[in-house]
C-alpha cells in the first residue's frame, strides 16, 4: 500500500521499440507500460510470483558481452548484439535491466500462448453458459485472443468436485480451477490465514481447505475477485446476474476509516455486488467481506421511506420546513452529528450549528482493528468532521453528556443524524423531554418518537467525499436512485441552515458545497469535487495530526515486499 515514489528509469526494448520504464519492475509490467498485453493467469501485482501458468512466456534477450573480457560484443552496424535466450522466459518473474530486449509477438510466443490455452482447456468443463465468471473470465478472453479456436482433445476429461463449500461466502468448482494458486497465495500472504492448498498431484491436483479449516476469513471474497476463472464464486452473488448487464460506479467502503476504494455494481436500480477498486495508497486491490455486504442496507427491511411530522405522513419538504421551525424557535439546540456524513454534508451541518450556536455531540463507533482494512474507527469520515469544523473533539463513547444537558434543562431540542439515541446512552425519559428531529435510514424506537422524522439516503444513493484514516480525501458517487421523494442529507442540512438563518431554501449541488468548502477550509483550498482524483488526494492533517485517533495501526503494507523480506531475498538477487 505504499505510494511508489519517483524511481530511476531504465531503457528496455519491447518488440523493437525502446521504452523507458522504472527500475525494479518486471517484464510483464514493462510490457504493460509499452502498451503490449502479456496475457497471464497466476501473476498478480500484489502477490508473490508463482510462475506456474506459463501464459506470459515471451522471448528475452540481453546485450551480449564477451565472456573473457567483459567487453560488449558489437554487430556489423556497431550496435551491441543481443543474446536471445534459447527458451522462452516468463515475463512475470524477471526484472527489467538496462538493454533488456523482449519480444511479445513472435511466432514462438504465439505458439506458446496457443499451447497453454489448449492445455488449460483440455480438462476444463467449458460450462460458460452456466458459469458466473462468464463475461469477465480470463479463460474466455485469452481463448478468444490467443487460442486455437477448436479442440484436438477427444479423451475423457478429468472429474473433480463440482460444488465444494469452502466457507460461509465462497464456493469452489474444482473442474474450472486452473491451479494458478492466486487464492492460496492471497490467503497466506495478505489475509495471513493460510487455509487453502492443493491435494493430489499432476492434472488431478485439487484445490481445497486444509483439514478442519474453513475459508471463513473476513477477506475470503478477495479470492473470488482474483480467481481468473469461475472456480471460486461468491455464494451471495452466484446465479443472480450476468456480469455484462451490470454497470459499476466508483465508491468508498463506509465500513471503517480505512476507506477501501470500491466499485458498486448495479442493474436497473438494484445493487448486486461490491468489489474492491485498486488503490495502491489505500487498499491495494482488496477489501473486507463485511464491507461487501453493506449494499444490503439499501433494501433493509426496516428502511425508512416515509417522512413524518408529529407522527403523521408528510412530504420531505414539509418535514424539512417543520424541522426548521422547531430549530428556529429554540436556542437550546443540540446536534448529534455523524461521522458517517460526507464532508459536504458535515460542512452544511456545521453552518447550521454555528448559526444556531448549537451544542455538538458525536458518538464513536469503535471495533477491533484487524491490521488490514478494518480499522478501529468503524465510521468513514471522523477526520472530515474535524476538517469541516463540525466537531473539535473526538466522538465520545456515548451520549451521557447530552443526557446531563437535557436533565439540566440546557437542551430542549435535538437534531439527531444517523444515530439511534436510545442505543447510544439516552434514556427514554431524556428522549421524551426534548423535541427530536431524527434523520435516519432505518427505523428505530427512538426515531418513531421524533417530532420530525426525515428518512435519509444510504451511501449508495448519494455522492460526496470522505477523509479516511490517512487523511486521504476520497469521493464516492451515487450508484442507484434513493426511494422516491426523499431528499439528500446535503439538501436537508443546506435547507435547514438557510431557513433557520432566515433565508430561503434553495436546491444545492455538490459544487455549491465545494465552492464554500474550498474558500472556507484551509486544508481544502482550491479544490472542487470534480478535481478530486478517483484515487483520492492526501489532505494536510495540520493540527489534527496530534489528535489521538483510535486507529493504532497504519494502512501501510506491501505484501510482496513483505514476502521478499521474509524469504531473505534482497532486491539485488
Amino acid at each position, binding site marked *: 500500500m505504499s505510494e511508489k515514489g519517483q524511481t530511476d528509469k531504465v531503457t528496455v526494448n519491447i518488440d523493437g521499440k525502446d521504452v523507458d520504464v522504472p527500475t525494479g519492475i518486471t517484464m510483464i509490467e514493462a510490457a504493460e507500460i509499452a502498451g503490449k498485453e502479456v496475457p497471464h493467469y497466476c501473476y498478480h501485482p500484489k502477490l508473490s*510470483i508463482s*510462475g*506456474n*501458468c*506459463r*501464459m506470459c*512466456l515471451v522471448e528475452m534477450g540481453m546485450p551480449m558481452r564477451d565472456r573473457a573480457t567483459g567487453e560488449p560484443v558489437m554487430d556489423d552496424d556497431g550496435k551491441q548484439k543481443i543474446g536471445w535466450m*534459447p*527458451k*522462452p522466459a*516468463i515475463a512475470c*518473474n*524477471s526484472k527489467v535491466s538496462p538493454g533488456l530486449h523482449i519480444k511479445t509477438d513472435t511466432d514462438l510466443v504465439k*505458439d*506458446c500462448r496457443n*499451447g*497453454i490455452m*489448449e*492445455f*488449460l482447456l*483440455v*480438462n476444463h468443463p467449458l460450462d460458460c453458459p452456466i458459469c458466473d465468471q462468464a463475461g469477465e473470465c480470463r479463460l474466455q478472453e485469452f481463448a478468444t485472443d490467443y487460442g486455437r479456436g477448436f479442440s*484436438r*482433445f477427444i*479423451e*475423457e476429461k*478429468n472429474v473433480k468436485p463440482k460444488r465444494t463449500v469452502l466457507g460461509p461466502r465462497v464456493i469452489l468448482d474444482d473442474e474450472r480451477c*486452473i*491451479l494458478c494458486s492466486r487464492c492460496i497465495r492471497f490467503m497466506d500472504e495478505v489475509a495471513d490465514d493460510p487455509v487453502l*492448498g*492443493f491435494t*493430489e*498431484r*499432476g*492434472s*488431478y*491436483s485439487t484445490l481445497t481447505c486444509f483439514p478442519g479449516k474453513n475459508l471463513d476469513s473476513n477477506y475470503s471474497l478477495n479470492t473470488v475477485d482474483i480467481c481468473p476463472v469461475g472456480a471460486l464464486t461468491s455464494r451471495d452473488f452466484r446465479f443472480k446476474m450476468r456480469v455484462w448487464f451490470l454497470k459499476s460506479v466508483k465508491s468508498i467502503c463506509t465500513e471503517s476509516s480505512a476507506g477501501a476504494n470500491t466499485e458498486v455494481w448495479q442493474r436497473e436500480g438494484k445493487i448486486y455486488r461490491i468489489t474492491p477498486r485498486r488503490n495502491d495508497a489505500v487498499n491495494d486491490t482488496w477489501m473486507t467481506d463485511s464491507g461487501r455486504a453493506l449494499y444490503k442496507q439499501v433494501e433493509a427491511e426496516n428502511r425508512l421511506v416515509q417522512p413524518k411530522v408529529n407522527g403523521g405522513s408528510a412530504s420531505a419538504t414539509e418535514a424539512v420546513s417543520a424541522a426548521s421551525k422547531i430549530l428556529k424557535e429554540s436556542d437550546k439546540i443540540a446536534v448529534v452529528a455523524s461521522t458517517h456524513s460526507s464532508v459536504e454534508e458535515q460542512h452544511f451541518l456545521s453552518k447550521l450549528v454555528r448559526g444556531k450556536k448549537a451544542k455538538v455531540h458525536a458518538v464513536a463507533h469503535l471495533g477491533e482493528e484487524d491490521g488490514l482494512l478494518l480499522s478501529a474507527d468503524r465510521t468513514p469520515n471522523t477526520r472530515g468532521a474535524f476538517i469541516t469544523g463540525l466537531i473539535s473533539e473526538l466522538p465520545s463513547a456515548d451520549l451521557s453528556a447530552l443526557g446531563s444537558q437535557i436533565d439540566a434543562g440546557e437542551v430542549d431540542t435535538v437534531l439527531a443524524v444517523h444515530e439511534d439515541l436510545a442505543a447510544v446512552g439516552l434514556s427514554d425519559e431524556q428522549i421524551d423531554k426534548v423535541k427530536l428531529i431524527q434523520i435516519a435510514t432505518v427505523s428505530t424506537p427512538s426515531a418513531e418518537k421524533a417530532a420530525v422524522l426525515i428518512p435519509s439516503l444510504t451511501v449508495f444513493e448519494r455522492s460526496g467525499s470522505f477523509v479516511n484514516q490517512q487523511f486521504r480525501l476520497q469521493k464516492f458517487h451515487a450508484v442507484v436512485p434513493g426511494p422516491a421523494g426523499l431528499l439528500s442529507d446535503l439538501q436537508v442540512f443546506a435547507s435547514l441552515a438557510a431557513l433557520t438563518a432566515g433565508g430561503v431554501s434553495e436546491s444545492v449541488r455538490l459544487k455549491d458545497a465545494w465552492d464554500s468548502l474550498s474558500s472556507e477550509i484551509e486544508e481544502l483550498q482550491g479544490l472542487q469535487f470534480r478535481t478530486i482524483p478517483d484515487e483520492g488526494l492526501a489532505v494536510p492533517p495540520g493540527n489534527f495530526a496530534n489528535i489521538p485517533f483510535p486507529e493504532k495501526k497504519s494502512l501501510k503494507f506491501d505484501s510482496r515486499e513483505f514476502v521478499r523480506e521474509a*524469504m*531473505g*531475498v534482497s532486491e539485488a*538477487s
Partner: protein
Amino acid sequence: MSAGENRILFKNIDQPGYGRDIDSYMAAGGYETLKKAVGMKPEEICSEVMDSGIRGRGGAGFPAGMKWKFLDRKSGKPIYLVCNADESEPGTFKDRQIIYKDPHQLIEGMMISAYGTQTALAFIYIRGEMYEGARILEEAIEEARAKNFLGDNILGSGYSCDLIVHRGAGAYICGEETGLIESIEGKRPYPRIKPPYFPAVLGLYMCPTIVNNVETLCHVKHVIERGGKEYAKIGKPGNTGTRIWSVSGHVQKPGYYEIECGAMTYGELINDLCGGLRPGRKLKAIIPGGSSSKVLRADERFTGKLKDGTEFDWGVGDIPLDFDSPMAAGTMSGSGAVIVMDDSTDIVGALANINAFYAHESCGQCTPCREGSLWLKKVTARMIAGEAREEDADLLKSIADQIEGRTICAHGEATAWPVQSFILKFRDEFIEYARKQAAERKAKNAQPAAVA
C-alpha cells in the same frame, strides 16, 4: 566383476564377506580419506574436486566442482549439503546399491564434501520407497558418529557437522533439486523458479545449498584419496572417472556395471558385459540414459563432430559410454540407465508405459507439464486399448512440442523427449498400429452377426 569393468565405487560391493557395517568398511581402508581430508584446508578439497573434472551423476552431468564454486559465501548464511538419494528415474538402480551395501562410502564422501564446502548441516534425502535404505543409513550414521566421523569436532579437526536422513513420501519430482529442497522444508515439492532460486544461492531455507547425487558424493571420496589431477586420468578429458550403468530390458544379464568413462561402447556393454540379447532376437531400440532420454533406433547412424573436433560416424552400438558422446548422438547419458528393447517390443506400448509414468509423476504446478503429460498418457492409453488413430502420431508430437522448454523444471523435457523421439524414430510403426486396428475392426464388423 565382469571383464571390462573398472570398479572404484563398487570395489567392495558384492564381494564375499563384505558387509555394510563400519568394521567391513574400515577393514577395507574406509574413512582413511576423511582423516586425510580434515588435515587439508577446505578450499584445497574444493580445488581437488574442481581439478578432477568430475561431473554430476544424477542426470544433468554438471561439473560438481563448478556447482560448489557457485556457493554464495558472502551472504553469511549457513551452507547446507544435500545428498539426492531420491533415485527414481525408471531403469536406474545404482545409488541404491551403495546405500544398501556400502552406506559408509556415501557417508565418508558426504563428510569430506561437507568439510570442503564448510557445510553447517548435511542431509540425505532418500526416496520414500527405500524404507530399508533409510534404516540402513541411520544405523550407519550412528556407527560413524560413535567413531567421531561425523557430529561434533570431527576427528579433532574443530569442524562439526551432523547428517540427517530425510525420507521422501514417494514422488519422482522430489529428485528435482529445488523440489527436493521444498520437500525437506515440509512443503509440496513444487520445483522453484530459476532464477532466482538457484540452490547455491537460495536453497534450503533460503540458504546456499549444494545438492549432489549419491554416486557423485562417493566419487568425491576417491577424488580426495587419489588427488584431483590423478583422478582426472581415469576416463577421458571432460568425462572423467567411472560411471555405473544400470542395464535393464531384453539382455541376458541385466544389472549394474561400473565402467571407466569412454572405455567401452553401448554395443560392448550390451553384447559383452550383459551377454547380448535373448537367443534369436534382434535389437530394436535403446533408451540410453533413463526413460526420459531420447530413444535410439538400432539401425540409426550418427555422424558429426565432437567438441574436440574429432569426427564420428557411429551406429548405435558404437556410441562410447560417457557424457558427451550420447549428447553428440542427440540424446543423453542421463542417470546411466540403459533400457534395451529387442524386436519383440510393442513400441506404442512402451511409450504408453513411459507416458503413464510421467503423467503420474507430474507435480501439477505448471500448466504445460500438468495438462500435457496426462493428455499424452490418455492418447497412448487409448491407442493400446484399440482406438488408435493415424493422426495420433502427429498429435502426440505436437503435444510434446508444446511442453518442451516451457515448464518450470526439467520434468517437462523428461515428459516430452521420449514422445518426440519415439514418434520421430518410429512414426511408421505408430501409423501402422492404427491401420492394423482399423483393419481388425473392419473385419470384425464385416463378419455376419452370430445367430442367437
